Each structure stands twice: as structure tokens, then as C-alpha cells.
């Protein structure tokens, strides 16, 4: 048997149950309002998988929901943010109240850590972070978050070494995949190529399932070959309410409603989880309730007008 062969198509529920374990380090795909793997996150929340360590670059509503649902013990990232729509409020509250361990990096530093993992190397040198509190302030435990060494070819020049990051599992939403697990990400890829290749297991949800023939006819479009992928979940609109490049625009009113309730916390927030996640067996049910066909087609039209 070769590495990760066979038909990998399964439901979100099956994929999460098989590949996301309690206490796992989970790589988070997407960025702010773009291509967050919402369908997979809803499933993690429904299954109540606890003590997760979430790692990524710019972590957004997908991370915030898992923190808000009480499933996260630590985050390692460059930022928690929805930019113009506000910060990640549940994440912020959890840190301010001392309920969440955080380790801060810059985005390039996180991408460099994933790159090291993806190349099978123990660490990656960096010239970011120098002179700042990202290096100076103590992190949450005694594990060494970085090392400073001398450039062997230029004595006296400090270089930061960042430890490789190899998530147990990564969750990513893409535009296209085939049943083997070959993945096409269209548009920006942020930190995902490196993160996925560094991960033990990978779950990809996708807008469209394509034939392997289609992949083989145009192989230079493959962002991630099947070797790295364990599960393929066909889930159109799987990033809603965030956007998917070429497919649909983010749903700003829904995001603003989430932000309002995440900021308020308490019952207002629990109602969101109840209404939109626990109240549904599947992501399709959520889409029907939260958006509906007309709204979704509006979002598709808006995206098409921006291309």
C-alpha cells in the first residue's frame, strides 16, 4: 500500500471523528474573511473535541468559534483578527481572563516554522522578531520558543532559529479536489501550502469534486498532491460566512452579527452557537437557516463582479 492512497471522500463528521483527536495540534487554514474552513469547524464544535492547540498565521472566526466553545487550550499564531470587522473577541476575552495560553509570532515567523516542518528540518532561521518583545517576553511555559545563534559565516550577527511546527492535523477549505486528495487552491494561498505539507493528517473540504483526469490533464494547477491529504469533504459554501475566491463573497451582515455576539459574550454568544451550530446536524442545514439560496446566489454574483 502506498502512502495515503485510495478514495478519500467522506463526510465532515467522519473526517473530523477520524482525524481530529482530543488534545491535537490543529493547523488552521484561511485568513480573516477568506476561505476559513467553517464546515469543518462546525463539526469539531458539534463533536466537542477538547484541549486543542490551534496554530496558524492570521486566525479568524474559525479559531474564535472554537475558543468560544471552550475547546482550545492554546493558540500559536501571528494574529487573531477580522480586520475592519473587528478583532477576534472571544479569543481576546479568553486571553484577558487568563483562560487561554498564547504564544505570539509574526506571520513570516509562523510561515517559516511551517516551512521547516514541510522540509523535514528541525528549525528555520529568521531575521524577523529581533529586538522585540516577541522574543523578550516569557511565553507560557519553559519550552524554548526560539534560539538566538551567531551567523557562522558572519561572526557577531545574531540570527533567530524558530522551531519547526508539525500540526497533528490541518483543516483547509479549497476550491477543488479529487477523490485521491489532489487539491487545487485558487487565488491566494497564504500559509497553507507549507502548513499542509508539515502536517501529520490533512482534511480538505472543497467547493467542487473534480475527476482525477482533470487533475492529470493540468497538473501544474495542483497546489497540494494527494500524498499529504487524508480526507476530502465535498462541501459547497464550506467557508461561509467567509469568502472563497472565485466562488462567493463573504457575508458581511452575518459576520457583523457574529462579531456583535462574540463581543457581548455570555448568553448572546451561546445563542449563536446554539442557533447556528448545535441546532443543526449538518452544514447544509446551517446554510439553509443562516443564508438561504437567494442570499448565497447574491454572494456568488458579488464575487463574480470582483474578478
Amino acid at each position: 500500500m502506498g502512502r495515503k492512497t485510495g478514495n478519500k471522500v467522506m463526510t465532515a463528521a467522519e473526517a473530523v471523528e477520524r482525524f481530529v483527536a482530543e488534545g491535537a495540534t490543529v493547523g488552521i487554514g484561511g485568513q480573516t474573511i477568506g476561505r476559513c474552513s467553517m464546515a469543518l469547524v462546525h463539526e469539531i464544535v458539534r463533536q466537542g473535541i477538547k484541549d486543542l492547540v490551534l496554530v496558524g498565521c492570521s486566525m479568524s472566526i474559525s479559531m474564535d468559534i472554537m475558543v468560544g466553545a471552550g475547546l482550545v487550550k492554546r493558540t500559536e499564531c501571528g494574529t487573531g483578527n477580522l480586520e475592519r470587522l473587528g478583532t477576534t473577541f472571544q479569543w481576546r476575552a479568553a486571553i484577558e481572563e487568563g483562560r487561554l495560553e498564547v504564544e505570539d509570532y509574526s506571520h513570516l515567523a509562523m510561515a517559516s516554522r511551517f516551512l521547516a516542518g514541510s522540509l523535514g528540518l528541525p528549525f528555520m532561521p529568521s531575521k524577523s522578531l529581533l529586538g522585540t518583545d516577541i522574543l523578550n517576553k516569557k511565553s507560557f511555559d519553559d519550552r524554548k520558543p526560539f534560539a538566538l545563534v551567531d551567523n557562522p559565516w558572519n561572526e557577531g550577527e545574531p540570527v533567530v532559529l524558530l522551531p519547526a511546527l508539525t500540526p497533528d492535523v490541518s483543516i483547509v477549505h479549497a476550491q477543488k479536489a479529487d477523490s485521491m486528495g489532489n487539491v487545487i487552491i485558487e487565488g491566494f494561498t497564504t500559509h497553507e501550502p507549507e502548513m499542509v505539507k508539515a502536517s501529520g493528517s490533512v482534511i480538505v473540504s472543497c467547493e467542487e469534486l473534480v475527476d482525477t483526469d482533470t487533475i492529470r490533464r493540468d497538473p501544474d494547477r495542483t497546489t497540494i498532491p494527494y500524498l499529504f491529504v487524508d480526507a476530502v469533504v465535498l462541501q459547497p459554501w464550506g467557508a461561509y460566512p467567509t469568502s472563497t475566491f472565485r466562488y462567493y463573497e463573504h457575508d458581511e451582515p452575518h459576520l457583523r452579527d457574529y462579531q456583535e455576539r462574540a463581543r457581548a459574550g455570555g448568553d448572546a454568544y451561546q445563542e449563536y452557537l446554539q442557533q447556528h451550530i448545535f441546532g443543526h446536524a449538518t452544514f447544509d442545514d446551517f446554510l439553509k437557516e443562516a443564508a438561504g439560496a437567494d442570499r448565497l446566489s447574491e454572494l456568488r454574483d458579488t464575487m463574480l463582479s470582483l474578478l
Partner: protein
Amino acid sequence: MRAPKMGSWYRLDELMVVEASRYIADGDIVIVGTGMPMVASLLALKNHAPNMCFVVETGTIAPQVIRTPVSVSDARVMYRAVRLGSLLDALGGVLQRGLADIGFLGGAQIDQFANVNSTVIGDYSRPKVRLPGSGGANDLASHAKKVLIISRHERRRFPERCDYITSPGYIDGPEGRKKAGLPVPYPDIIVVTDLAVMSIDKAVGRLRLDKLMPGVSLSKVGENTGFEPLLPSETASVDPPSERELRLLREEVDPHNVYLKAGDQ
């Protein structure tokens, strides 16, 4: 705050964006952070720098941005780019590689050495307010040839020393970047606010007050700054916005006030 009535009426936060855009030259490679930097860069692109290479950390290279992106992952910021690649392409292959002429960022606190804090207010381990964190800001401030910072001017935003240094300015003085081992050459750093323009005096590693916004007095800047900026013998005045700059900003860059809200000062 309203500026004196000379020519057309404008707000000082509008002039802040206009003035910041003027530091971008045509052809510059600019790594653009989220928020106000995006608006000012977009204005430069539309007004006087059609050949600037707009680079966004998501991996977007040289887009012809359309109005008005709310995020670095907004399709509006990717319009007609020459490449949509990875974060490593943008922050590694362009920025850390040393190709960025300008790194353009905002921040919650900026201190006298032009260090920027976007991580926490208060103690790191138990913050009073937790902010979003570095994102690409640390990388921008570490590697760009010139660093442009834009911020509203309030005393709490300009402390003597940041609660937490997320992105390096001159750290603690003229030798700060050298001691830390940051890449050479060390950047010019320019801070544009709605009251003034300051820049790093490299000989002392501290911010110097270069220009005042029209109608703003030195004492007004003093009241709103938690440190004493170096003072030149003569302080210049920021040029008011041209009709064209104002029109582009209001009609083509941010017509729906996504970033600049009247009264939000």
C-alpha cells in the same frame, strides 16, 4: 477636527491619509498592512503612483486594487494582480529578501523610538487589553527599506515606551537596531498622524517633529504626545490636500467611509 477654511473644507484625518500617500513614489514596492495603510496606498496608486507594486501578505503581488477592501483577504485587494501566491512569497521572497521599498503599518502604540505595539495594553501575561498581535507588522518593520506608520494622534497612543514592542523601531536609541542584529541598512521611519508628521533622527534614534498639520499648534501636539519629540529649529506645515487628492479619496478610494468616518475622530 476641522482644518481652517482655505480652499475646500477637509478633515485632518483625511489629510493624514493624503499626506501618508505622498511618501509613496511611483514604482515603489510597498508591503501594505491592513486598515489605514490600505486606504493611503490605494490613494497613492490612483493619484500619483500607478506603477507602485502593491504587495499584500496573503501572497498578492501588484494588484490594481478596487474600492474598498475591508481585509487583506478581500478579493478587491487582489483585482488584476500579476500573481496570487503565498504568504511566504510576499513576506519572505519579497520583504525579508530585501526588495520592499516601503513597509506601511498602523499600531495601537508608537513610542519615542518608533517602536510599535499591536499586541497588548498592560502586562503581556495578563493584559488589560489584548490586541490582534503582530500579523505581518513585525516583518514589515524589520525588513523594509523605509517604514511608514499611520495613526490618529492621541496621548495614549504615543507613550514614552510601548507596553510591548511588537515591531521594531530604533528599540532604545541609535544603536538599538544594530545591537539587536536587525538587517542593514537601517530604515527611515516616518510617522504620519492627524496632528503632525514625525520621523526618526538616526543619529539619536528618536522621533523628530518635522511638520504640523495646518492650524495645529506645537502645544497641541505636546498635549497629545506622551514623550517629547525632538524639535527642529523650524517646523514646516503639511501641504493641504489638492482638489484631486480629496476627490480621489472621497469618491474613488473610500466613498462609503469604510475607513474614514465623519465624526469618528
